């Protein structure tokens, strides 16, 4: 937290810390959105999907008010160096969370449209990939909360695992569709849901990249993530 504190102006410290805390709050809300949307789909629960849509308005409200706070901070404090990187990174983090929230909304809408309940095998795939996406988002939020660059680098690497799981899940889905083409529309919707969850993982990875840039790393390059991957393998 050092990097957001220590200014002569305590009000500046307060403004940066306040922004940081509110983004973590927004992240908590988005995490719940993704978790509940995936559950609403796998358990085919309309009430859950409705809750997700209602809470989406709260996510948007966070997005709008954080935008405003960031503009005010830029205008009043004209941050430079580490403060400027932190402010821009926080602004981008809000964007990533907002888009992750949008993916949850898409999944919930799918349930509300009642197009067709996924079969047990598809539900299992969605649950599995949903859990991976949620845990990745949770880890990236923890990294953001503690401004922990090494955890952020882990997230960036782990997103590749999620991508592999997504591709495998999609292949299984298509195989099942070819075996029984009667429910192709359900398969198509399930593919969109899987894609949404994979996108949540991408947003978690991007959020982790912002943590790295706040920590003074320039954008984590392939080298950095390769190092992290190598250390994980050993």
């Amino acid at each position, binding site marked *: 937290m050092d990097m957001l504190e*220590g*200014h*002569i*102006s305590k009000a*500046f410290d307060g403004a940066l810390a306040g922004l940081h805390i509110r983004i973590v709050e927004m992240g908590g809300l988005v995490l719940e959105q993704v978790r509940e949307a995936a559950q609403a789909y796998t358990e085919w629960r309309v009430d859950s999907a409705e809750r997700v849509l209602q809470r989406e308005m709260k996510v948007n409200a966070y997005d709008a008010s954080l935008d405003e706070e960031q503009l005010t901070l830029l205008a009043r404090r*004209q*941050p*430079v*160096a*580490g*403060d*400027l*990187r932190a402010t821009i990174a926080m602004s981008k983090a809000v964007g990533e969370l907002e888009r992750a929230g949008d993916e949850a909304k898409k999944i919930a809408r799918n349930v509300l449209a009642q197009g067709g309940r996924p079969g047990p095998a598809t539900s299992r795939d969605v649950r599995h990939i949903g859990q991976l996406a949620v845990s990745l988002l949770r880890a990236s939020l923890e990294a953001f909360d503690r401004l922990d660059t090494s955890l952020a680098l882990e997230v960036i690497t782990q997103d590749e695992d999620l991508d592999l799981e997504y591709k495998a899940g999609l292949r299984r889905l298509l195989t099942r569709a070819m075996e029984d083409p009667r429910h192709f529309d359900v398969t198509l919707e399930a593919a969109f849901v899987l894609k949404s969850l994979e996108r949540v993982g991408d947003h978690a990875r991007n959020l982790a990249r912002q943590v790295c840039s706040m920590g*003074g790393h*320039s954008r984590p390059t392939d080298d950095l993530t390769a190092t992290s991957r190598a250390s994980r393998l050993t």
Partner: protein
Amino acid sequence: MNDAVNDVTQDRKPKDAAGIPEEPHRRHIGEGGLNLKPSGRTPAPVSLEQRSGEKTVGQASVENAVFTCRDVNVFYGAKHALRNVSIDVGRRQVLAMIGPSGCGKSTFLRCLNRMNDTIPGARVTGSIHLDKTDIHDRQQDVVQLRARVGMVFQKPNPFPKSIYENVAYGPRIHGMTRSRADLDEIVCTSLQRAGLWDEVKDRLKRPGTGLSGGQQQRLCIARAIAVQPEVILMDEPCSALDPVATARVEDLIEQLRASYAIVIVTHSMQQAARVSQRTAYFHMGSLIEVGETDKVFTNPRHRLTEDYITGRFG
């Protein structure tokens, strides 16, 4: 200081008629009893690479520099105001010097046209070369030096004369003109380059002190450029001006950069970021970091620079 510099210093010992080296201690020369290193001939500037123990981080040297300063130290009596500052000033670029009060940035600026000569008890060591000429050389005429290195101060200080005379004064005393028409031409060009011509062309005979603060400062800039300097030094030139006049002067600095090297001391970090290509950060008499302005304000390399520009101490 390292050996390379000491070697050069040894070479520079002047000899008297009998060939006996003069006392290698400081001697009083120039105005105000300034003590300087002995200086017989002009040695080549020492490149940064020849030096060791460099504490400044960043890129202190530039190619084809107009000013080359190496191991500059300034003492005011017992006070060591500037410590081993080595930096180049590039041509056609603005070098901003920032740092908390008393960090030595104005002291260093005043070294560049020997304004410290006027302060009793001031002592300058090290080498400062302007276009490969040692500005502390005994042959160096301080008046000529200050024509080559103009200065603009914090508070506008026009002479209590007409606008025309303010600008014409320098060219006249330096014998730069042969006729009245030449002088008129210089006054007109200088005022145009300072962005003041349109505002004053109908009242050139009126006193310069009757202009607004911002106009007075631009008049001082016109006065400085009238003698065709190579470098313009600016010591907080906008701190007494309102934001509109400040914007005009900053715009002018950007235009003047095409013809001159500019060194500006400013307390406004935003101003340093806006107008300069290189920024130097001073702290307690030492040059901590120097580098491209874009880098210094987004990703400074030294913790002290980061702490200062982000408002963590000062």
